[in-house]
């Protein structure tokens, strides 16, 4: 695609930024328009967005984008004026146009892309206009010669008596000009400033009605010279030629009045600076990484300070060093928080793209859905934002497809015809919690159980051991779909398991709760950032592990006597509940049952999707902020471990993946197998 001359890459970037904003705005607003068809402000906003796009894209030379925006603007204009009224047909045409616009916008990123065709979209939009049957304005050709009538003659004589010279002026405009009416007005304005217009062809009123072509004739009385007038008129853009003849030659000419130039131009500062800057995301990422390294080093220095203090106790220098270290630690913490907050973005960015999708699916499925968004201002790290969209789409699709019933079904169930889906985001400690709640038919645990058994994912014996809540959460297992019919939207048995895998790989969790007949709630919990996590360090079997604080319920001492065995598995009674126990050292194969350490044990209770498990460890060490380093590059993804981190003293710790640990235990227990989640045999070595 060729761009207009003089458009630099910076210009293009600026254009793209703004175009993206406009496109997003259109996306949200057009969907809103369907409901709020009588909201004039919304209408104006949509119109302006199309209008801005039209202008800017013409400026950068993206003619097709500009043309399409123009076609949309025409329709919007008619809607705005009340000639057309908002209908699903119009919304569809606008959305279709918008889709093409997005393709056109993408062409700017990949210049080799096949140029998108706007013909269909423009035709669809224009068809809406012809339906209005708007009478086309015909411009009548003005070929006549201007001849002053009696009234004009009288005025002319009066002007001449005042000593003015009458001129007959013919102005021809550029054949290409679309703006002759306005140009004619400029001619009128210019001439009125220096004299009196006796008569013109076409008249002022005719011009306003658009009845002007490329010739404009005026009879004017003025004190100015022919040259002055000529200069004045040729200064108007698109004026091709000016022909001036004195109408009567006997009046004396007067010197033109010099118009005092009022150029009291005071020098001004340059362009005003705004209060915000746009920064490349990569720079922020680099900054974040640097701060991450700084945090590691802070931990190391703190450690060093402690070692020195132990060794030299009250030594003055060491005390001063300690103070300085704690100062630096404080500053680094603040810095870390500041950098994190720069990277925070409101989830709105993702949420705003969803109403359109919900509308499209609902329309396709013939369902009525009221989509409510709450907490869109909740902020989260941009690395997390990027990962939010796909899971949300899957869950929303699931709600519309499987949750919300067809309108007739809802009415007969005594529910309002339109289903409600409520998307909510909020902060909960260091997590962002997003829920998708519908008031549909809910999930029958029975149906899930049956399906799981039918598909041989569970035996009928094992399935009965699951609580209803656990059974319902099986919908996240691959190969389990409960929709009675497979639709083209969701329900090929893939989808929710992908959601689960993706969310868990981010250190988050997803779960579902459902009341049959009343609705389903998906809950998605994600850490606010993926780069730094607070964790509890524990040691067991001679190795140090880190447990993310986000999954810890509590930690306590564990007496050997409190451990009981049920069907060969260790459990304990914790706060009145039976809690399955997991000995970390044995899970990872660092030690075995035969030389099990039963003294001075601690328990760390962790949770995942409503299931709690007690991790048995030897020692609780301390709580630390860990900079997560992925292990994938070195040893491949490992079950039970999400990553590693470097401690202040240089030791490497493994960060536990509680989700896969808990799932491992549950499945192990339910299937009665004794397969250990054997993961790492190589110990994380010391430096």
């Amino acid at each position, binding site marked *: 695609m060729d761009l*207009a001359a*003089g458009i630099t890459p910076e*210009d293009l970037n*600026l*254009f793209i*930024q*703004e*175009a993206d904003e406009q496109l997003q705005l259109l996306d949200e607003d057009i969907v809103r328009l369907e409901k709020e068809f009588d909201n004039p402000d919304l209408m*104006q*906003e949509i*119109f*302006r967005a199309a*209008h*801005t796009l*039209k*202008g*800017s894209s*013409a*400026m950068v030379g993206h003619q097709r984008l500009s043309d399409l925006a*123009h076609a949309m*603007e*025409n329709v919007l204009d008619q809607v705005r004026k009340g000639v057309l009224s908002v209908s699903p047909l119009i919304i569809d045409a606008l959305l279709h146009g918008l889709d093409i616009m997005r393709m056109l916008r993408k062409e700017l990123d990949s210049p080799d892309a096949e140029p998108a065709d706007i013909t269909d979209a423009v035709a669809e939009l224009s068809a809406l206009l012809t339906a209005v049957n708007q009478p086309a304005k015909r411009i009548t050709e003005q070929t006549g010669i201007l001849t002053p009538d009696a009234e004009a003659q009288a005025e002319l004589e009066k002007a001449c008596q005042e000593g003015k010279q009458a001129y007959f002026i013919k102005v021809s405009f550029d054949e290409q000009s*679309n*703006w002759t*009416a*306005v140009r004619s*007005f*400029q001619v009128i*304005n210019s001439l009125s400033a220096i004299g009196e217009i006796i008569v013109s062809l076409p008249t002022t009123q005719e*011009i*306003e009605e*658009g009845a002007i072509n490329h010739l404009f004739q005026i009879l004017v009385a003025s004190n100015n010279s022919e040259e002055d007038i000529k200069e004045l008129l040729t*200064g108007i*853009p698109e004026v091709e030629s000016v022909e001036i003849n004195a109408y009567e030659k006997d009046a004396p000419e007067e010197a033109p009045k010099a118009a005092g*130039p*009022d*150029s009291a*131009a*005071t*020098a*001004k*500062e*340059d*362009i*005003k600076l705004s209060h915000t800057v746009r920064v490349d995301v990569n720079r922020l990422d680099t900054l974040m990484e640097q701060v991450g390294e700084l945090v590691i080093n802070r931990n190391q220095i703190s450690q060093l300070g402690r070692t020195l203090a132990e060794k030299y106790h009250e030594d003055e220098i060491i005390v001063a060093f300690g103070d300085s270290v704690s100062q630096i630690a404080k500053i680094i913490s603040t810095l870390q928080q500041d950098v994190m907050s720069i990277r925070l973005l409101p989830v709105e960015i993702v949420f705003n793209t969803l109403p359109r999708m919900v509308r499209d699916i609902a329309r396709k499925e013939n369902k009525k859905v009221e989509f409510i968004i709450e907490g869109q201002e909740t902020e989260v790290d941009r690395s997390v934002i990027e990962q939010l969209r796909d899971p949300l789409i899957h869950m929303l699709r699931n709600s519309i497809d499987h949750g919300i019933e067809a309108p007739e079904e809802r009415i007969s169930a005594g529910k309002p015809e339109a289903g409600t889906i409520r998307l909510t985001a909020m902060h909960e400690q260091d997590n962002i919690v997003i829920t998708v709640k519908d008031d549909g038919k809910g999930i029958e645990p029975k149906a899930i159980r049956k399906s799981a058994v039918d598909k041989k994912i569970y035996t009928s014996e094992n399935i009965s051991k699951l609580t209803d809540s656990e059974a319902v959460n099986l919908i996240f297992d691959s190969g389990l779909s409960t929709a009675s019919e497979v639709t083209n939207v969701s329900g090929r048995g893939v989808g929710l398991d992908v959601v689960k895998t993706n969310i868990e790989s981010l250190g988050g969790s997803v779960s579902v709760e459902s009341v049959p007949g009343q609705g389903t709630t998906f809950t998605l919990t994600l850490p606010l950032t993926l780069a730094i996590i607070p964790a509890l360090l524990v040691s067991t079997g001679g190795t140090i592990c880190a447990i993310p604080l986000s999954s810890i319920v509590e930690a306590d001492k564990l007496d050997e006597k409190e451990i009981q065995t049920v069907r060969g598995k260790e459990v304990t009674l914790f706060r009145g509940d039976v809690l399955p126990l997991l000995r970390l050292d044995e899970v990872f194969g660092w030690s075995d049952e035969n030389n099990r350490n039963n003294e001075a044990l601690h328990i760390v209770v962790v949770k995942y999707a409503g299931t709690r498990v007690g991790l048995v460890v030897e020692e609780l060490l301390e709580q630390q902020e860990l900079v997560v380093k992925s292990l994938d590059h070195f040893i491949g993804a490992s079950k039970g471990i999400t990553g590693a981190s470097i401690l202040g003293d240089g030791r490497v710790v493994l960060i536990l993946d509680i989700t896969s640990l808990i799932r491992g235990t549950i499945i192990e227990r339910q299937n009665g197998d004794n397969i250990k989640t054997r993961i790492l045999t190589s110990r994380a070595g010391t430096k």
Partner: protein
Amino acid sequence: MATVMVVDDAMFMRKKCAQVLSQNGYAVVEAASGVEALTAYQQEKPDCVLLDITMPDMDGIQALRELLKVDPDAKVSMCSAMGQQGIVIEALKMGAKDFVVKPFDVARVIGSVKKMIG
């Protein structure tokens, strides 16, 4: 150095226009809305104004009316897109000195500014 105020809610248009003007030796004051334009006009006293027509809150026509109330000699050139002839005529009747059509032609913009401030 003469000062030109560029009023447009579309950021790209505004920046591009400001860029062209400053390259041609003008100081530029930017305003993103009619309301901003009114305040900026009184503070910065620009020599002339390029005023977009389609804007939120206070459109170009309203802004022109208010500007002329503040300064009857305000030199304002309207920026308009295709299909806004009627509005431009209204603006010219109200006292706008000139107009330029989007997409901007550099020569036209500079020409319009020169014409206004001589």
